[in-house]
């Protein structure tokens, strides 16, 4: 992790004497450092997931290929899906939650800094736990939605699925802890005057996402717990001999699974909603509607889950209801698309790299959204489900949408995080190769799907009419490898060699651009008082915000907070100089996270009948966790 050491930028070089040793990263409770850790870790897992995709595509390049075995392939696609969803996109979003939310709402940190560190460590350890087995060819092989009864002992007797069950359980804890933290942060840590309807759109979408996490993870926790009990303790939740109904797993999984896909996309929507106005020199069009549609998408997201199950025979009534609910979601999503276009309308559009990614998101997500609506019609879906048409759909929304939004976000906020710009021309290469590669990879899948190619097959026979499409997809993937490599190079190199960026390199409207890049540990020397939705434009370009309401926070809260009007902070001090109390660094969250993971690991020994060993490790881990918690909770924060 040494490579994660703080960027040595101009600002850091300019006398700020921060502790940058590895220990400082292990004990950090600073939301920005934790955000950075999330970013690096999640990018690493993105590469791992991408590497798995490359192996998948190589195997599928031609019919009847023998590049990897069936068993390996099944592990690869399971881990590819699991890695991308749980270890790449969610934590990439979390990186932005961590880094940005406090800056955007004018706070010095999140509500519970140590809990935040805990979330990260649980994520890291959980990620390692679930990924490591692939090196031993023991990786989970039940697909990313792990349908029972295939995942029960009877049909998957090896330890593969154990890693999946325990790993997801661990990762769920990380997401839940983070969600409680951010809900509290957003409700309660906003600077004076920053009413809910003045929050930046990224913060808003993140806010919605936290509620989705809080409500969607419990069902999968329970579903996984049942599976865990079945696998380790012989319960009968999914045991077919006991009369279990395998649809129980499917329903519980998708009650989680569908909100999950909005967990994956809404942060990207939020990032794009920051980028588009900035480079159009215009405020976001229809802010209120954007907020409401985001809430609407989140809310409706809980009522559509069974559209993943149109082929299971739920009956005509249920199919119809879920179909209609699913179609409804197209409306608020469309509203977002149109508002983004309207945001650019009559603006001065600058085609910077982040802007290109944001525009491309609109173009590509729409394609994925339309194929989503095609799925939402159950009879039509009977020809599409479990084919490459679905694979095309979700890569357009995920890779075309989420990943693109995240790339937009990374190139947009890189200067804020490091104090230096990413290289523009490398960025352009990345963008174009990525754009072409993505369409070359995933567009042909629409055809192979509709022409009968089912998903999750490690091989297919010659002469089925799919050869060309698969060949295209594989070459597209190789282009993506080149594009990604350029990105990685740019990302790593620019930390030390990029052009120096000031506080506000893009002309942003929100608070994060009012402080130095990278921000000092305390973020805001003085808590700003916000009087409109675009505080920094109020300051720098008042003519832009003349048309909107301005008002001050009520007097009482201001005195409480010692708030001052928004201003640009140009000087850097240490927190000590300013007398700002900062949370103590502490290793305790890591200790608790580690003991928790140990506790889960113990269960693995049950598989070999080592009951005593398993119980010793599990109970030992649990006890260490409780002890750690006590010591954490009784130690002062700052």
């Amino acid at each position, binding site marked *: 992790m040494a490579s994660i050491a703080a960027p040595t930028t101009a600002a850091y070089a300019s006398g700020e004497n921060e502790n940058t040793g590895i220990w400082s990263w292990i004990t950090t409770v600073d939301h920005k450092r934790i955000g950075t850790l999330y970013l690096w870790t999640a990018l690493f897992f993105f590469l791992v997931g991408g590497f798995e995709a490359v192996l998948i595509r190589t195997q599928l390049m031609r019919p009847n290929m023998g590049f990897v075995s069936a068993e390996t392939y099944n592990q690869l696609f399971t881990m590819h899906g699991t890695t991308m969803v749980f270890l790449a996109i969610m934590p990439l979003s979390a990186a932005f939650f961590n880094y940005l939310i406090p800056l955007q709402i004018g706070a010095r940190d999140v509500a519970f800094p140590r809990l935040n560190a805990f979330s990260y460590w649980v994520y890291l350890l959980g990620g390692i736990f679930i990924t490591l087995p692939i090196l031993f060819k023991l990786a989970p092989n039940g697909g990313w939605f792990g349908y029972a009864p295939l995942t029960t002992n009877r049909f998957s007797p090896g330890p593969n699925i154990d890693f999946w069950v325990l790993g997801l359980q661990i990762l769920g804890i990380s997401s839940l802890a983070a969600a409680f*933290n951010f809900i509290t942060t957003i409700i309660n840590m*906003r600077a004076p005057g920053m009413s809910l309807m003045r929050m930046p759109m990224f913060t808003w979408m993140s806010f919605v996402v936290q509620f989705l996490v809080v409500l969607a993870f419990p069902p999968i*926790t329970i579903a996984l717990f049942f599976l865990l009990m079945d696998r380790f303790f*012989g319960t009968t*939740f999914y045991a077919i001999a006991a009369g279990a109904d395998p649809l129980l797993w499917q329903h519980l999984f998708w009650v989680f699974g569908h909100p999950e896909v909005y967990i994956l996309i809404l942060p990207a929507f939020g990032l794009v909603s920051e980028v588009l106005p900035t480079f159009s020199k215009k405020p976001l069009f229809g802010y209120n509607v954007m907020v409401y549609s985001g809430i609407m998408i989140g809310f409706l997201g809980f009522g559509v889950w069974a559209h993943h199950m149109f082929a299971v025979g739920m009956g005509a009534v249920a199919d119809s209801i879920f179909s209609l609910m699913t179609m409804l979601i197209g409306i608020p999503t469309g509203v977002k698309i149109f508002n983004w276009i309207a945001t650019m309308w009559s603006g001065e559009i600058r085609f910077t790299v982040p802007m290109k990614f944001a525009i491309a998101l609109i173009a590509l997500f729409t394609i994925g959204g339309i194929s989503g609506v095609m799925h939402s019609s159950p009879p039509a879906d009977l020809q599409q489900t479990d084919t490459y048409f679905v694979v095309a759909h979700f890569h357009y929304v995920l890779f075309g949408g989420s990943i693109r939004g995240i790339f937009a976000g990374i190139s947009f906020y890189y200067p804020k995080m490091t104090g230096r710009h990413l290289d523009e021309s490398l960025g352009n290469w990345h963008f174009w190769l990525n754009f072409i590669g993505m369409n070359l990879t995933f567009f042909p899948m629409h055809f192979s799907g509709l022409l009968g190619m089912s998903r999750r097959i490690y091989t297919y026979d010659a002469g089925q009419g799919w050869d060309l499409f698969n060949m295209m997809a594989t070459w597209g993937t190789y282009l993506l490898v080149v594009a990604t490599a350029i990105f990685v190079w740019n990302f790593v190199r620019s930390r030390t060699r990029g052009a120096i960026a000031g506080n506000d390199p893009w002309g942003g409207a929100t608070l994060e651009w009012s402080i130095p890049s990278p921000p000092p540990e305390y973020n805001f020397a003085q808590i700003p008082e916000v009087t409109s939705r675009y505080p920094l434009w109020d300051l720098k370009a008042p003519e832009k915000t003349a048309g909107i309401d301005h008002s001050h926070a009520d007097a009482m809260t201001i005195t409480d907070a010692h708030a001052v009007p928004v201003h640009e902070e140009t000087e850097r001090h240490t927190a000590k100089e300013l007398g700002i*109390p900062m949370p103590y660094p502490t290793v305790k969250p890591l200790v608790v996270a580690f003991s928790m993971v140990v506790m889960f690991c113990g269960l693995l020994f049950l598989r070999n009948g080592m009951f005593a060993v398993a119980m010793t490790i599990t109970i030992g881990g649990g006890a260490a966790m409780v002890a750690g918690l006590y010591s954490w909770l009784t130690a002062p924060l700052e």
Partner: protein
Amino acid sequence: MSAHTTAAGHDDGHVHHHYTTTGLDNRKIAIWAFIGSECMLFASLIATYLIYKGRSIVGPFPHTEYVNEAGQIFKPILDIPVTSASTFVLLMSSLFMVLALQAVQIKHLPLPDGAGWWTRAQRSSQLWLFMTASFGAIFLMFQAYEFTAFVHEGLTVKTNLFGSTFFTLTGFHGAHVTAGVLWLTSLLWIDRTRGLGPQDELIVDIAALYWHFVDVIWIVIFTLVYLIQ
């Protein structure tokens, strides 16, 4: 939890007032968000129990008799009188919990002259915390008794769908009660070592919210699992 207050802040005279947007304490918002999440957790458990209700292939069953091939008779397994008693115990612990919170809030008020034992008792947070925790513990003993009795009567987690769902649902609840008892015991410990006062209202309040929520879940479980047939 009890955290912060014990070691931090108050005695070093330096109390920095953290501004919060709503004026509410962060921890209270977090606990309510947590409770919201728990609703979904128990909803999944309860839904599963109800989905599998009446689908077990072999007994014992909760409300009906079961005769296996060997002619062995299994009575309806649920013991309503015992569980009614334990339900009552948990309800009462909730009452004690509010009284504990109230005691923390009013402890510092001067006692009116000739105050009776009840007025005095109302100011004793230690008493009520102790009562709450021990009633929680009694509830757990009831549950332990119930579980062992069921196992003796031939119902384990492995027996049938009912066994799996029943033990998991009530076991999850029991685990929550256990955590609550630990939590309350910690509060009691703090109360005994340094005394809880009105400034600690929040940490007691948070524990109380959790405790009541666990109680509320039991109210639902009692009706849906035990009473409805």
